[in-house]
């Protein structure tokens, strides 16, 4: 029985698990919920917490994206083996959880607040997070993956979290303008975006997750 991933028609909190499932070549069903359908889904009694994304596996409904990521990571072999590497993965996981909220603030803000939001992100958020990512990443001999020399939950979480920032026309451009300050991590991100999305420039308006009529 195929796994079912329930979410809204956007990258959001489901993108990291989509990237993992893509790399693992898992055949699953992505169930797009409209606003109205989500309202009903919330009250169907199957969700522990009224949250999306939700992953249905063998009749069990899982919630909390961090839990789902670790479940899928363990199932398909993306959990780093050593305590040191596992710490790094957990560090990226915790950092990206905070970072996602800041990205979402900008990406989902109304048109009149975008300019100020992008400026604030570039001045305050980006230096803190990319500064730390660059520091951690620059120390690594092998720079194709974040942890342990191969794909791990850290990569899917980082790329999945930041993809919606890079695809936003103003925020994406502003982040790329700063790439020179964070050369290693920026290069890693461009490599991964190309690998997963087969394009250097993501098209914000071409939403692949919108329901087909």
């Amino acid at each position, binding site marked *: 029985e195929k796994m079912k991933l329930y979410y809204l028609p956007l990258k959001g909190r489901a993108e990291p698990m989509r990237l993992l499932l893509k790399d693992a070549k898992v055949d699953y069903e992505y169930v797009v919920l409209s606003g109205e359908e989500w309202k009903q889904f919330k009250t169907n009694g199957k969700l522990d*917490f009224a949250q999306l994304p939700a992953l249905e596996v063998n009749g069990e409904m899982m919630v909390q994206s961090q839990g789902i*990521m670790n*479940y899928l990571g363990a199932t398909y072999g993306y959990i780093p083996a050593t305590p040191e590497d*596992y*710490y790094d993965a*957990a*560090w990226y996981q*915790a*950092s990206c959880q905070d970072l996602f909220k800041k990205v979402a603030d900008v990406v989902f803000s109304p048109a009149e607040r975008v300019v100020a939001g992008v400026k604030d992100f570039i001045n305050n958020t980006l230096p803190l997070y990319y500064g730390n990512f660059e520091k951690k990443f620059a120390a690594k001999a092998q720079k194709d993956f974040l942890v342990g020399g191969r794909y791990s939950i850290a990569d899917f979480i980082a790329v999945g979290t930041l993809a919606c920032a890079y695809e936003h026309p103003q925020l994406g451009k502003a982040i790329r303008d700063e790439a020179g300050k964070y050369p290693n991590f920026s290069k890693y991100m461009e490599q991964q975006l190309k690998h997963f999305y087969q394009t250097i420039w993501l098209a914000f308006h071409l939403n692949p997750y919108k329901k087909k009529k």
Partner: protein
Amino acid sequence: INLGKMKLYYFPMKGRVEMLKLLLKEAKAEYEFVPKGGEEWQAFKKSGKLDFEQMPALEDNGKFYVQSNAILYYLGGKYGFAPESAEDRYLNEWWIGGFGDLVGKLIPIMYGNLSEEEKKTKTEEFFKNTVPFFLGVFEKKLAAKENKDFLASDKYQCCDFSCVGLFAGMLESPLAQAWKDILPKYPSMNAYIEKHMKHFYQINNLFLFA
């Protein structure tokens, strides 16, 4: 080279460090707790040693570890409390995420610079609506388990330290009475907390924990 004992840095309170102390206690691991408050904390913050200028921080063999949940998993891996199966990993994250969300709703009330009046109102709302919702979900999950002595597995794992550390802090805070009033309505959770409070703090009855 051994650069000496592990060091755990935090403010002089339970907060986010207590779960790490409980893990280390259960592991019988030697470490030094280095409280940092006021000016000492400001200096430590600016020392460049902490990635996000936050505590708790763990110093192990000359390296600094930050982000409380990442440290929890690091120590869990070191001392045999890390979940291994896919199902256990999901459950650990489920519980830890749940507690994080619950605390996340309380923090703006406690530390959000509200007036005394607002703080009182919001705290009442918290215990009237938020707490029953979360405890209800937690109770359902734990009550469905065969072994109710541990949250995920049948032995201590990271999520257990997260839970007990959280409630130990709550039960010695100004909100202690509100928690003591509400917990008995959730018998599995109440029994679990009592059992582990006894194990870690030698407290026989939650109501006697002053």
